[in-house]
């Protein structure tokens, strides 16, 4: 998950325009729909990481809050890049987050995975799962019976997500592994004596 996506040779819109004239309108519409989905994914991921950061701030877990804030920033940049690539001056209307492979979105971690004592390792493990799921999602789209421009865009995004997976793995290797008692709290919040 490098802070910016790898630059492309041409914009998505230009790629769609290269399609034969008869198929151009349909291909372009499908590409736009796909890019809207991708935008919704990235935006939801950014918002979710920001929510996680807020949770950690409230729990005074500053280190992990900062990390989630960073992840939110990265996903927000990805969303902004999609706008730029598509030549959209503002966020497209009617963008709806969606579920994939379960109850969550493609690139969003679950609130239930939060713990007030969690470590950077745990936060990065959530990011790793998200990136891996995103890579599988785009690879799945790339295999569908869709216009070439969509399949190419999806394949390219799948490769980017795989690169993010590699990058997060490297990041995880640099942070301390949590001990077995990472969630031990001598004064836990559920004491009711």
């Amino acid at each position, binding site marked *: 998950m490098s802070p910016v996506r790898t630059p492309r040779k041409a914009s998505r819109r230009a790629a769609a325009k290269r399609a034969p004239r008869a198929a151009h309108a349909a291909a372009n519409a499908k590409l736009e729909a796909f890019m809207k989905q991708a935008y919704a994914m990235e935006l939801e991921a950014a*918002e979710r990481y920001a*929510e996680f950061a*807020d*949770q*950690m*701030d*409230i*729990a005074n*877990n500053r280190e992990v809050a900062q990390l989630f804030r960073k992840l939110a920033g990265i996903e927000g940049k990805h969303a902004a890049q999609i706008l730029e690539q598509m030549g959209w001056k*503002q*966020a497209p*209307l009617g963008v*709806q*987050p*969606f*579920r994939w492979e379960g*109850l*969550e*979105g493609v690139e*969003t971690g*679950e*609130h*239930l*995975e*939060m*713990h*007030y004592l*969690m470590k950077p390792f745990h936060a990065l493990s959530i990011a790793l799962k998200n990136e891996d799921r995103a890579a599988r999602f785009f690879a799945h789209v790339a295999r569908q019976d869709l216009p070439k421009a969509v399949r190419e865009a999806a394949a390219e995004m799948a490769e980017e997500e795989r690169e993010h997976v590699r990058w997060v793995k490297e990041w995880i290797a640099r942070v301390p592994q949590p001990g077995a008692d990472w969630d031990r709290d001598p004064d836990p*919040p*559920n*004491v*009711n*004596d």
Partner: protein
Amino acid sequence: MTAMPAVALTPQTFKSDVKPVWCPGCGDYTVLSAITKALAKLELAPESVALVSGIGCSSRIPAYTTCYGFHGVHGRALPAATGLKVARPDLTVIAAGGDGDGYSIGGNHFLHACRRNVDLTYIVMDNRVYGMTKGQPSPTTEPDWDSKLTPEGTGLREFHPLVIALASGANFIARTFSGDPNGTADLIVQAIRNPGFSFIEVLSPCVTFRPEQRGWKQLVRPSPVEPTDDPGRAARRLMTDDGFNLGVLYKGTRKPYQPAKAPSAKPADLEREFVL
């Protein structure tokens, strides 16, 4: 649902600057997120929506939105919400709270809000425990839930809110899980659009006092049947369901209650009442 915004609304539009103070991992975070997504999808201006609550962890929710909010008295979210909707039918009114607030302290109001069928939406974040007061069993707590405060459990049969809602006359009954944020948002949209009293039970784990509720993720499933408008069929479904079927479980056609608007009193009329 009258006010149409001049600019596109996003979920962020509905989030206030106040950050939630729920425990990390609490299901209520997702419910907040789902409400903001639903309101954006419905294109409701924040000032056209009122969020009314009682007391408890989940009842903090109005402060976290940019809508009108009323953080009321324990168990009294529904009377306040009902009064507001009757007086201001132009507002979209959402009442929200927890299982203790809604089914115990506010239990009687719950019955009568269903019966009255005023056009509002009631979202209950059910974690089967009083979290804010440190883990006492609530009306929906399982009879054998063993805790320090209730060794070997209460032995009391749990309350069945969806069955009660149906029997009392709610016009829309649904269940969702906080671990399904987009599904929850869709249900809230449907509930708000459906005329009359709409009731949504959200299975919203308390990760602090009921950490085992994280396992609900493995238990929930989409309801295997389509929504019905037949109360008899719905009753059979709800009485036999294990509490983990998600989706719209009943969608009635009863006309909402909305009294004719009384003429507004002028200040002079009021003054006359106080003349000695």
